[in-house]
């Protein structure tokens, strides 16, 4: 079982304790929730980048130069 180091600042005493099963489960749940949020954020960022690339391609197809497209950003 993983451990935690606890330093009591009022006494200076350090104690090493095993994480409880509940603490381990909570941390795994927290990590899973974090991974979901992170994946959603990355997907949103990728969708935004894809939309930008698509828009730039359409502008280029209309005859705008790369400098003109860049000036719109």
């Amino acid at each position: 079982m993983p451990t935690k180091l606890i330093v009591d600042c009022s006494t200076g005493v350090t104690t090493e304790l095993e994480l409880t099963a509940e603490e381990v489960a909570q941390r795994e749940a927290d990590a899973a929730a974090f991974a979901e949020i992170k994946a959603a954020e990355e997907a949103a960022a990728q969708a935004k980048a894809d939309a930008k690339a698509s828009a730039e391609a359409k502008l280029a197809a209309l005859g705008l130069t790369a400098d003109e497209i860049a000036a719109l950003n």
Partner: protein
Amino acid sequence: MANTYEAIATVTVGSGGAATIEFTSIPATYTDLLLLTSLRGDRSGVTQAVSLIVNGSTTTYTHKYIRGDGSSVISFTGGSGWMNPGQATAASSTSNTFSNGKIYIPNYASSNNKSFSFEDVSENNGTEAYATLGVGVWSNASAITSIELGQRDYGSLKFVQYSTATLYGIKNS
């Protein structure tokens, strides 16, 4: 270092490693807190994100940081459940190297929201290493009485032996 800095407590991780390092019963007698870290983790990668939680709270954190990794710089918005004040050096980085981190918490015992600033570098004799610079807020009026350093992003990793953290109290007079 100014003579108003006082080392409150230091902890060094032992041979078995530790999932978290927690400072508890932090006295309210200082103006600010400074946490200095030297960390290495067991993740199979160049670094692993460090998490920071105060008073056991996993809500109402807001933080932004920029991070350079040796080839690019990216701006991040952190999650609300904890702060990520930097990256610990991890198993794929040069052996026996540790990250250096600094977390500053002004007015930690006030009844206002608590602001943080942090900077951190990982260590690696290679092209990939991380430098982090950021700020954050814990939106809570309670005085900070405990701080936990861990790896909440992953669930089951740990800091390895000889990782250290020292908590300083700073008085303004």
